[in-house]
């Protein structure tokens, strides 16, 4: 969001409402999802979304480690979102930074809101998200990948969790920002929807919007999530049709 002292702000919106990559304000970037890409995990998925490449894997229900996190009446959801060192322009030092820890927390809580955790007391359901190539919207891409991986692992859930970020770019509310839009835009609002109930289980915002713009953004995001939901279901249908794991990435 609004980097201080930046010199060259690119033209983010043409007079006829086209964005830097030619998309319309309510248009998603191309998205491709493959389920069952890992031979080791209990469930997995690979998502290419615009110029993002994200892999997710699920292990569990299994023994809780470290043990003192075990809960007697439910499974614990342990989520780790991580970025590969080479996934961003400036090399990221390996290891968990504060941003990754926050994202891991809110994604874990989102899944904890839809998984029937009480069916697996004293176990852990471990959700791992690896961002291999990043171009804005990685937490949503990761969440979508992880949601498909959870379904691939057969974890019982209320519903799949489509997710997308809405932003504000050159004064306009726009769906699914790419990197330049995110860097020079005015706001970013990632969300994850439970399609069945129409409720949001992940919602964050940074930047600034008026109350009215926020309402608009919420509605646009919900529509975007419903489109992504279809892609997710198609990926799972394809997975079940194929049967065997397809190979990582």
């Amino acid at each position, binding site marked *: 969001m609004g980097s201080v002292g930046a010199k060259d702000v690119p033209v983010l919106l043409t007079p006829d409402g086209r964005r830097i990559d030619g998309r319309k304000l309510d248009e998603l970037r191309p998205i491709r999802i493959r389920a069952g890409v890992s031979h080791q995990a209990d469930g997995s998925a690979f998502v290419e979304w615009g110029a993002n490449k994200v892999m997710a894997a699920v292990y569990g229900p299994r023994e809780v480690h470290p043990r003192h996190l075990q809960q007697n009446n439910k499974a614990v959801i342990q989520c780790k979102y991580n970025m590969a060192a080479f996934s961003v322009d400036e090399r990221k030092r390996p290891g968990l930074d504060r941003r990754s*820890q926050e994202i891991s927390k809110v994604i874990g809580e989102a899944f904890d*809101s839809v998984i029937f955790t009480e069916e697996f007391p004293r176990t852990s359901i471990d959700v791992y998200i690896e961002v291999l190539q990043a171009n804005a919207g990685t937490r949503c891409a990761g969440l979508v990948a992880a949601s498909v991986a959870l379904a691939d692992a057969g974890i019982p859930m209320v519903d799949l969790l489509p997710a997308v970020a809405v932003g504000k770019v050159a004064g306009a509310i726009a769906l699914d920002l790419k990197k330049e839009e995110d860097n020079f835009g005015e706001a970013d609002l990632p969300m994850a929807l439970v399609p069945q109930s129409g409720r*949001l289980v992940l919602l964050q*915002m*940074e930047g600034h919007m*008026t*109350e009215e713009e926020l309402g608009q953004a919420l509605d646009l995001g919900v529509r975007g999530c419903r489109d992504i939901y279809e892609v997710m279901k198609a990926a799972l249908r394809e997975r079940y049709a194929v049967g065997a794991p397809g190979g990582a990435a």
Partner: protein
Amino acid sequence: MSGEVTAEILTSHILDLASSGKRLDGRTADEYRPISVEPGFVVTADGSALAHIGDTAVLSGIKLEPGKPFPDTPNAGVLTTNAELVPLSSPMFEPGPPQPGAIEVSRVVDRAIRAAETIDLTRLCVTPGEKSWVCYTDIHVLDHGGNLIDAALLAAVTALLHATVPAKRFGIAEADYALEVGHVPIECTFVRLGDTIVVDPTVDEERAGQGRLTVATDEAGRVVAMQKGLVGAFSPDDVKDVVRRAFRHGERMRAIARGTGR
């Protein structure tokens, strides 16, 4: 073990009460606990404030030190926010490196301050590319009675409003001067209890809650940060309702931070 049972009973009691519009401590759904701030609590800081929201007590201290600007923003100072959820403040917190909860508090507070442009970072530049002020906002929780985020930001902005740039001490100017502060963001946090959404949750209400939602607003009429947390969900209409309420509470709390209201 028996602690778990007690917690479950308390949770269902809180949800029962909420279904008839009541809360354990007698508040309405849209009522904060008593709020107060005490600026200047710590004289070793360049700015400080102790904020109380009900049983919750959070101390914030500002420190300004000369440092180096980031290479990609040579004309800007540096803002750093850190929250310590020390184990003194709650039986739930453990010693050791910052837990995800502490990181979340510091990041949500930090985002609100940045997005509201509370501090004009270019004013913290001393020599472009060479020297700039680093402004540390440290948040130290003393008593965790619930709703840490609101108390943390309230303490932080009050501390910033009373902060001094120690330019003389560091030989950068002839005299120290007051830190310039722009928009003041206020965060308001809500939890869902069944069909009711209550503001300013206690620890027990956070535990019973089915989702937590924080909305930061500034006096320019902007939403500047949001964060949904914990297990649970909100409909878009819930969110819009909560935003409306956050603007109203925000106005009052901003007056408290500025010392012009209570």
